[in-house]
């Protein structure tokens, strides 16, 4: 038995016990509303629980009990001894069913009789036994159910179409289109026959509404048999019969089709108003109608609509009347029946009405199209999307009286919902607009800005795309043509405003921006003091509430500060073209001097990065380009001899990869000969003899970055100035960048620099060692692990451990900082170990403990401390103390 069923049974027993107790107490105190409310809640909850499972007999009885108790609670039915007996009997039946479920996991089919009897008896106690019509919550369709049995359209399950969709479909049907209701019940084994029900259903064109029913007997997802299809698809389409025949030719026996006449869509929906429309009004409009004063009629109805809430059933019915007058002006009986229905507030039974065969009376106006999109976002999701959006519109349209004044909380929640929805359907570009509308709504304490945005968004951005993509799609009237025109005008205004805004730029002194940047840096640090303060408020001064309030305020400040920082960062962004632009001239000059022919290609000049990064990049890049021209590209004769074009190619490319800028310098020259490098490195004493023998080619190529390495045989005045690529590397590493090289002999060399987009704020992890705290830049930290002492092995006097099948050397931070104290393990005798990436290798640094990560403004060491190795800088912490930030690259 699964956990859910177990839970259900045990809880249900409690409820049954509770119901019995409450009934007993009610015997003594039959007028206690409190007891009745309790009793109702028990029955109600129990019914709700049973609905989660497929125990129809139980649910039916409980449902009847609930309805009865609801009536008792509201005073519609008075409590009596008979009633209590009947309820107890029903509960005994439920209890018996539960025993059976516990034993066999299901209920037998022999209970249907008892269940019906009990239900009828309970319903009989309600004054109007037939008044309560309750649709079964989960509709299950068995093999011998709907799919095979011929049904007429009036027996179709309720479809719950939005009014606008229903009107659009009605219009289609009136205009002579065949609207088909289609039910597709794939065979459970269909997956083994190579059928794809989802694909098939998605192939069906011109779908206006669809619904998927999970015909599932398993009670949990885990229990579900994923290899058999348990779905039933229902949809409405105006596709032609031939088209459908062709599409569904392999599964004709699993399809049920019903032609839906126009009238079936005429189904007003909404709240029934207790009072209903004024009888005088109804008499009046019927008179207008009978005298054929259609214009007066429509005017009166329009006035009424303006006066009453749009959510009322009667308003919906009136809109339908207008719709019918527009689309079927000659179909008087239907219009009259609907007008008369205003008295009862119930949709007339159209099947009773003889359906006149109405000829199309007018052409389809190019009505706005809604909601059926077959792009990447799945159809079902889009249907749900529109449901949610409609719900938000409904919420925003609620009159202030029904829910009190507009509260900021509700507006924010609607905003959050909208943002979520638009993100989920991959329209995240709308998010900032929603946020703007939300802000406006909050300031005005009114839902209007959000409503306006929603109307605009649904018309302006959504539709054109859809119409373009699915011109052939079904026409569903969504919004009246006049709103369309109105919003177009609105969008023009907005568009105009954008143009004006876009042309406004401002030249600002760079120093001012830098100062702003420094200030925001200070602010980020200052705001970090708030959590400390909150902590102190709680621990030192013992005021929890204040602490919580400070934390809440901190969240706000934090968000604003981060936004501000982002914005300023944006201002500081510069395109790399700033440094790229000098290369054409430089390459031309140098290649002339060397007698080489070079074609320079620049790519991604528009890529942006922080000004500091761009500036720091300038010198290394020049150095690399010179190197490529000098050592990489060969003389034309050599190139021709090697079978290449005489003109060499030098490509400098910038691109953005997530939060880093990648710059590549690629030449098609002679490449780097690893053997030559090895030999040089050996001669210069950079590697010893044993290394010389086993070093891989890639490692050898990497040696060009070693300090004091220069391969040029003749020191030219271009690149060989005694300094080599090590200068490039240290310059790049200074701004937290990395540099790498790939080379293929005879084919060319690719050098790549990867740099952060910005270096304003550094995220560091705080660690503790020898009672001191240090920071380690997060971008160097691969992971943090706790290594048990037993797992530390000593290989050649070096501590190591094996992490995921990889040997990782371990170094103690105290050793690295020349402290004699040993590292402290935790109580489980494990050492906190920081795995960092240094020059492409993973190294573990043992520390005493990990702390949190913080954003800091890293200030490089200056003056005498500037030369201190092992540290990349210092930063101020929120509590005012100084955090020394380690540089593991130098430390190791």
């Amino acid at each position, binding site marked *: 038995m699964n956990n859910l069923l177990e839970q259900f049974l045990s809880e249900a027993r409690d409820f049954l016990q509770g119901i019995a107790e409450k009934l007993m107490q009610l015997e003594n105190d039959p007028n206690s509303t409190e007891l009745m409310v309790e009793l109702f809640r028990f029955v109600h*909850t129990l019914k709700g629980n049973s609905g989660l499972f497929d125990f129809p007999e139980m649910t039916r009885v409980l449902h009847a009990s609930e309805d009865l108790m609801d009536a008792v609670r509201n005073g519609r039915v008075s409590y009596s001894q008979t009633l209590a007996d009947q309820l107890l009997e029903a509960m005994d039946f439920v209890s018996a069913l539960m025993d059976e479920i516990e034993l066999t996991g299901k209920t037998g089919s022999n209970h249907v009789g008892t269940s019906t009897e009990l239900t009828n008896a309970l319903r009989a106690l309600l004054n109007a036994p037939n008044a309560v019509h309750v649709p079964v919550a989960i509709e299950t369709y068995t093999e011998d159910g709907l799919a095979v049995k011929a049904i007429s359209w009036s027996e179709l399950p309720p479809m719950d179409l939005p009014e606008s969709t229903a009107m659009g479909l009605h219009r289609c049907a009136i205009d002579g289109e065949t609207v088909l209701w289609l039910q597709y019940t794939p065979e459970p084994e269909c997956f083994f026959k190579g059928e794809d029900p989802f694909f098939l259903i998605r192939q069906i064109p011109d779908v206006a509404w669809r619904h998927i029913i999970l015909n599932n007997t398993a009670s949990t*997802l885990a229990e579900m048999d994923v290899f058999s299809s348990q779905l039933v698809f229902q949809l409405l389409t105006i596709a032609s019969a031939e088209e459908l025949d062709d599409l569904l030719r392999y599964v004709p026996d699993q399809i049920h089709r019903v032609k839906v006449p126009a009238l079936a869509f005429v189904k007003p929906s909404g709240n029934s108003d207790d009072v209903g429309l004024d009888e005088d009004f109804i008499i009046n409009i019927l008179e207008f109608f009978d005298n054929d004063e259609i214009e007066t009629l429509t005017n009166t109805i329009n006035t009424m609509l303006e006066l009453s809430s749009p959510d009322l059933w009667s308003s919906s019915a009136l809109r339908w009347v207008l719709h019918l007058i527009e689309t079927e002006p000659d179909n008087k009986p239907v219009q009259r029946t609907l007008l008369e229905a205003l008295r009862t507030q119930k949709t007339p039974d159209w099947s009773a009405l003889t359906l006149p065969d109405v000829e199309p009376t007018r052409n389809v106006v190019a009505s706005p199209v809604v909601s059926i999109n077959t792009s990447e976002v799945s159809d079902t999701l889009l249907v749900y999307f529109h449901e949610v959006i409609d*719900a*938000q519109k*409904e*919420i925003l349209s609620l009159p202030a009286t029904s829910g009190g004044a507009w509260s900021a909380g509700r507006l924010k*929640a609607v905003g959050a919902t909208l943002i*979520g929805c638009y993100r989920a359907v991959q329209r995240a570009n709308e998010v900032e607009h929603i946020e703007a509308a939300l802000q406006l709504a909050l300031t005005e304490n009114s839902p209007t800005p959000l409503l306006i945005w929603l109307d605009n968004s649904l018309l302006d951005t959504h539709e054109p795309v859809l119409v373009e993509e699915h011109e052939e799609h079904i026409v569903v009237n969504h919004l009246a043509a006049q709103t369309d025109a109105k919003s177009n005008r609105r969008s023009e205004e907005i568009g105009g405003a954008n143009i004006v805004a876009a042309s406004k730029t401002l030249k600002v002194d760079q120093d001012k921006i830098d100062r702003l940047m420094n200030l925001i840096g200070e602010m980020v640090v200052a705001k970090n003091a708030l959590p400390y303060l909150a902590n102190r408020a709680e621990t030192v001064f013992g005021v929890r509430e204040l602490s919580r309030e400070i934390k809440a305020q901190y969240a706000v400040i934090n968000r604003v500060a981060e936004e501000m920082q982002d914005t300023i960062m944006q201002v500081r962004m510069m395109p790399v073209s700033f440094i790229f632009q000098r290369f054409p001239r430089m390459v031309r000059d140098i290649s002339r001097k060397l007698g080489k022919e070079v074609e320079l290609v620049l790519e991604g000049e528009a890529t942006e990065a922080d000004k500091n990064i761009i500036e720091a990049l300038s010198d290394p890049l020049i150095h690399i380009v010179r190197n490529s021209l000098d050592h990489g590209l060969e003389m034309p004769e050599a190139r021709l001899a090697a079978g290449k074009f005489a003109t060499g190619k030098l490509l400098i490319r910038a691109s953005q990869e997530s939060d880093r800028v990648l710059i590549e310098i690629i030449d098609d020259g002679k490449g780097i000969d690893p053997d030559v490098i090895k030999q040089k490195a050996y001669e210069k004493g950079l590697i010893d003899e044993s290394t010389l023998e086993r070093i891989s080619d890639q490692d050898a190529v990497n040696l060009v970055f070693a300090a004091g390495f220069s391969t040029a045989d003749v020191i030219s005045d271009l690149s060989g100035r005694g300094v080599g690529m090590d200068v490039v590397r240290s310059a790049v590493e200074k701004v937290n960048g990395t540099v790498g090289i790939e080379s293929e002999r005879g084919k060319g060399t690719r050098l790549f620099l990867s740099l952060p987009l910005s270096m304003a704020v550094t995220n560091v992890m705080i660690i503790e060692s020898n009672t001191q705290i240090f920071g380690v830049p997060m971008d160097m930290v691969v992971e943090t692990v706790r290594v048990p002492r037993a797992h530390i092995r000593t290989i050649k006097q070096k501590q190591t451990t094996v992490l995921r099948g990889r040997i990782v050397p371990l170094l103690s931070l105290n050793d690295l900082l020349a402290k004699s104290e040993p590292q402290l393990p935790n109580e489980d005798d494990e050492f906190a170990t920081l795995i960092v990436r240094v020059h492409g290798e993973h190294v573990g640094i043992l520390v005493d403990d990990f702390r949190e990560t913080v954003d800091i403004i890293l200030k490089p060491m200056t003056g005498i401390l500037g030369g201190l190795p092992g540290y990349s800088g210092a930063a101020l912490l929120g509590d005012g103390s100084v955090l020394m930030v380690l540089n593991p690259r130098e430390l190791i």
Partner: protein
Amino acid sequence: MKHILVIDDAATVRLYHRNILETAGYSVDEAINGIEALEKALVTSYDLYIVDVNMPKLDGYGFLKEFRRQEDVLQSPAIMVTTEAGNQDKILGYASGANLYMTKPTKPNQLLSYVRLLLGEVA
């Protein structure tokens, strides 16, 4: 991981929702009535609330009204889940601060679709 608070007095319904949501990779907390829900929601910022209507002590409407009144909390979307699906109940729920209405028993796929939408997760 997105954090969802399921508020329902019936343990079975809570477990039902927990099963669905956890299988889909969400982290789930439970509250058995409006009061407990408020206590939790004011401490933890949940990304989504799934709220039953009929509960002892403080019902779903009451919880939402109180919660939406809070100024310094993250006003995440709320789905109201109930057996009463009358339009009047719906309006009441919306007016209290719900963002969506679902009828019990919720269908797992529908629930998950809504949850993904409200959480802004691209499928």
